[in-house]
């Protein structure tokens, strides 16, 4: 009774009924590939988890060479449920990157990037880059030995860019080497700059989806309306989303309890690099590629060549909806399947190779 009165009060002022009616009239196509629709929602949910857990961590985290490691240790050992918040933040970050990759490839293979959703794809690709940057910048924040050397090796790649490399490197690190200045920069990037940009791009991404609706499979183009099964976005799809989110939350809790985020030893710039140092799993394919490249390729340094090809590849991938129509129609599908399949296979093999080597 009380809920109804509250609803009536809000509805009178904000016309909530109209919003619900709008959502009720939004439909989600139902077909054998519908499962992939959920990964966008999972990515969004994990981003929300990241924002909440990150905000909670901010209450105790202190940035600085003499404070970061100690404050994370304090969070893990002394703050009530601090271990849970940090572990959830850690695992949620990893799962979010995984979900974003799955979401991206599902969109690719269902051809949902095609007209009129070109900008949804472009904003999605930007969100992928932002997510990876979140991962890279956040990894340094505990200021432990592994993070220090992973950041040192990772940022060194920037230095291989001809002419402007050393200057760029100094801008990214804030000094010649990875120091407290780098930590402060990465912290600012992680908690202020990236969230701001991410929120903006994410809002655009969601607005595009709301305006254009969920894409239907290409095979539906020739189906009669009676054979097209759809479910209302509200409440049917949203409830399914909610169930999945609850399950993901539970998986996060299980991972946090049985595999809490490790802290390791404090970063020591004068200590030798730990043996077998590797980047996080989502950069392993890139790391392995760079490892396999010879010292010089054509007239460039091997590392720079690798970065150049990766950057150009990423730009090409982002602009996919604009150049795909150039491919003759009869070759389009085989080319796209070969491109997507090859990329998934390449990332999978290189990641496994990097992990095992």
């Amino acid at each position, binding site marked *: 009774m009380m809920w109804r009165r509250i609803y009536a009060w809000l509805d009178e002022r904000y016309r909530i009924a109209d919003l619900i009616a709008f959502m009720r009239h939004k439909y989600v196509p139902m077909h054998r590939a519908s499962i992939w629709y959920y990964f966008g929602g999972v990515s969004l949910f994990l981003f929300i988890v990241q924002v909440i857990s990150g905000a909670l961590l901010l209450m105790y985290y202190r940035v600085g060479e003499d404070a970061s490691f100690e404050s994370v*240790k304090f969070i*893990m*050992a002394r703050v009530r449920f601090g*271990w*849970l918040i940090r572990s959830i933040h850690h695992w949620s970050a990893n799962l979010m990157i995984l979900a974003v990759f799955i979401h991206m490839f599902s969109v690719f293979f269902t051809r949902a990037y095609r007209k009129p959703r070109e900008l949804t794809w472009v904003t999605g690709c930007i969100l992928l880059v932002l997510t990876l940057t979140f991962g890279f910048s956040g990894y340094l924040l505990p200021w432990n030995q592994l993070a220090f050397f992973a950041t040192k090796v990772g940022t060194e790649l920037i230095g291989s860019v001809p002419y402007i490399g050393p200057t760029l490197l100094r801008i990214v690190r804030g000094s010649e080497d990875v120091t407290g200045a780098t930590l402060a920069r990465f912290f600012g990037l992680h908690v202020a700059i990236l969230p701001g940009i991410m929120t903006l791009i994410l809002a655009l991404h969601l607005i595009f989806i709301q305006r254009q609706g969920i894409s239907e499979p290409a095979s539906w183009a020739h189906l009669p309306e009676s054979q097209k099964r759809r*479910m209302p976005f509200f*409440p*049917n799809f949203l*409830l*399914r989303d*909610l*169930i999945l989110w*609850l*399950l993901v*939350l*539970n998986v996060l*809790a*299980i991972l946090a*309890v*049985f*595999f*809490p985020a*490790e*802290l390791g030893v404090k970063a020591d710039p004068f200590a030798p690099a730990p043996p077998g140092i590797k980047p996080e799993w989502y950069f392993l394919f890139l790391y392995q590629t760079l490892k396999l490249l010879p010292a010089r390729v054509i007239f460039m340094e091997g590392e720079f060549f690798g970065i150049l090809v990766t950057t150009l590849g990423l730009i090409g991938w982002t602009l996919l909806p604009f150049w795909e129509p150039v491919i003759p129609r009869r070759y389009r599908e085989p080319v796209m399947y070969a491109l997507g399949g090859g990329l998934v296979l390449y990332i999978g093999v290189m990641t496994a190779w990097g992990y095992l080597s």
Partner: protein
Amino acid sequence: MRGYLGWFGVILLLAYWGNIPGSGVAAAQTSTEDQCVACHLDLEDPIVEMYARDVHAAHGISCADCHGGDPTAEDMDEAMSPARGFIEDLQGTRITQMCLQCHASVERLQAYGSTLNPEYVRPFPESVHGNADVATCITCHGVHDIRPHTDPASPVHRSRAVELCGRCHSDPNYMRRFNPALPTDQVEKYWTSRHGQQLRTGDTRVAVCWDCHDHHAIFPASDPRSTVHPVHVPFTCARCHSNPILMREYALPADQFDLYSVSAHGKALLEKHDTGAPACNDCHGNHGALPPGVLSISHVCGTCHSINAEYFNRSPHAEPFREKNLPQCEVCHGNHDVRPVTDEMLRPGQPSICEKCHHADDTGMRVAQRMYTALVELRTQMERARQMLTVAEQKGLEVSDALMQLKDVRSALIRARTVTHQMDPKALTDVVRPALEQARSLVRVGEQALAEYRFRRMGLAIATLLTTLLVILLYVKLRQMEATSRGTQQMGK
């Protein structure tokens, strides 16, 4: 008389070289007199007489075999011309190279009927003496009058070894040129050693310089190739001291190496290659090697175990040990077979170390009992804390501070074990009590960490249960809604 014999040798030399098969030049000139000898004889060069006694002459090696040139040419300029292979500057490294041409070659040694082992000399160029500025073969073996090492007249005869090495190594001005930090008192010390004392009596079976340092493969003690590198010293000493036949002659045991190799020191040095662990020379001395005297044992052990020695000298044991002439540390720990120490050494009620001197009910045994109890309690608590904290760490709990503090407890336990040498239960308690309190507090930290882990699992179980229930409820609600919706649609149709 000696001069006549020498000239007789020269005549023989001339006759011999005229007919010897084997050496390249001489073999080609079998019917020709050696002009080197003839000419230098005319010049009354004493080298000719000296060389007649040389071991190389006896094997038919001519002047030209080392110096080159043409011994058949009667004209001096022609015989000693570089065109005929004469080596004008046979000095420095070229001497060593010349000697090694034969002495490092199995074939050449066999050709001359020599039984010398070429492996023996091969390391010389790389050795510390191998640089020609330091020494060449002739520095030790002499030149033109080289005798077999078994000949007492040879400078490399065992009886003259110390004198030979001391020529350079006892001269500070000379040694300063090569290594200013190297002591020059080795010979002086050697004569004070048991080896030196025996050598003075004419006993040449005792160790002389090269028995430890090798003859030709001499390297600095810090070089792992050296026979006197810390890790190799026990094996070097054992070459003689593990020889029961040789040791029997000196009424010495021959089991020191066997005992040492299973000792705490031996395992550390020989198995772990921890060069901080003592080798034979660290207790017995190097050049002045002697078994340490009874009263000096604590000083010898105390060079490394200084605090233990200090506590021992403060203990009630110090005085009676001196009076009874007991070898201090050795009484409890042994000498060559010093075993890793355990707290059990103090444990009464078993064949304990203390029972060697004490009775079961005397004050000494009561003190041992108290010290044993204190150490065991500290060790037990420390081990308990370690186990708990390790498990907690493996389960991902943050206990690094506690593990760091555990190192302090471990240090206190080591300190407490050292304090036992003072045989003062109060002094021991002063060390053990705070460490024990710290260990107990760490046990509590471990217990709390493991309780926290159980709490986490319980919390997860409840959360999982609630989530599962909520998921089921949502799913049921969804199905109901969809069923109702389908029913409405069908009714509409």
